[in-house]
């Protein structure tokens, strides 16, 4: 699906205004909400640990080069309270991640929404505060 620049800008505005505070560190100092990124690939590793759950995704570009991305989620505590389990993401799963890139330019991002292997799009808890996920449509 094509997403217009306007929508991305609108979403970025929302993310900025949401003042994400679920992390134990400042979101804006680490990630750039104006650098949205969508990554599609295979989960290579999952770290289900505090203070942030992390997972790593191998993303292949059009030339066939694979890059490993380090993706930050909320803490397992917040994720569990939002219905995740430690098995929601497994090594080998094909996923699509929407998030914000790290400001330091490394292959790191804060995951906002994860489209799981079974097709469900799940709220990753990182940028909306410890709030209920958006209502299911």
């Amino acid at each position, binding site marked *: 699906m094509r997403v217009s620049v306007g929508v991305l800008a609108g979403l970025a505005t*929302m993310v900025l205004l949401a003042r994400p505070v679920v992390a134990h560190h400042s979101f804006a100092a680490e990630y750039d909400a104006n650098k949205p990124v969508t990554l599609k690939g295979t989960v290579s590793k999952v770290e289900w640990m*505090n203070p942030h759950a992390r997972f790593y995704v191998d993303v292949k570009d059009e030339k066939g080069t694979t890059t490993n991305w380090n993706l930050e989620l909320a803490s397992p505590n917040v994720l569990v309270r939002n219905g995740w389990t430690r098995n929601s993401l497994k090594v080998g799963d094909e996923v699509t991640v929407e998030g914000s890139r790290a400001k330091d330019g490394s292959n790191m991002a804060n995951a906002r929404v994860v489209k799981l292997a079974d097709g469900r799009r799940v709220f990753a808890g990182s940028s909306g505060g410890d709030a209920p996920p958006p209502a299911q449509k």
Partner: protein
Amino acid sequence: MSRISRLASLCFVVVAAAALAAQQTPPAATSPAGSGGLNRAPAAPTGPAPRLPNGQIDLSGVWQGGGPVGNIADGLAKGETLPIKPEWRKIMESRKAKDDPEANCLPTGVPRRDPYPWRILQTPTHTFLLFEGNIHSYRQIFMDGRRHPEDLDPTWYGHSVGHWEGDTLVVDSVGFNDKFWFDFQGTPHTETLHTVERYTRTNMATLVIETTIDDPGAYTKPFKISFTARLRPGEELMEYICNENNGYVQHITGAAKEF
């Protein structure tokens, strides 16, 4: 532009962005459990604050919030600004987010909170604040009428004594170290910090915490902040060991004030 019209413009941007997003983006994400953990939580109970058999207000329960997270100035009365000394303003503005002790799994100190639930536990001699999140620690408030000792070693949570004034628990604390920040922005203090917190459970689900911050080291005069904690009915504290996997703090490149 006045503050109100700026606020109105911001509201418009949010509403417009939300409307745009609703029209053109895929369905909103949900949680793996469908409705989501917090959506399963029972609605907040209503009614007056509960009382113990001796008639005193019962503060016990699992709470969320009640102190600054991002910006302590959010708790000031309308129109007030932090009476911070210029030299400390400079120090604050030079602080890097990666150096926030809280981001490095050290305690929040007082009166800062984090986004995790916490529990109040009252005994006849002590009141305990049990924190799930940073850093899975606790504060102890002595309720037996003792005074602060002389010459305290500076510590993260200081030395706290409490007493009741009517239905309000008043907690007086001194003996703090100068290491913790009041918020993500790096709002500072010194070892001369003295806090007086007033805990008032205004109804079953609401706990107002008003704190007077007196720190002649970094501020020109005492100031008051007020934050509200909300009851988390049916919630239990979970384990949270921040040091388990906090290996990425050095990737945080921004200034603390960027929050």
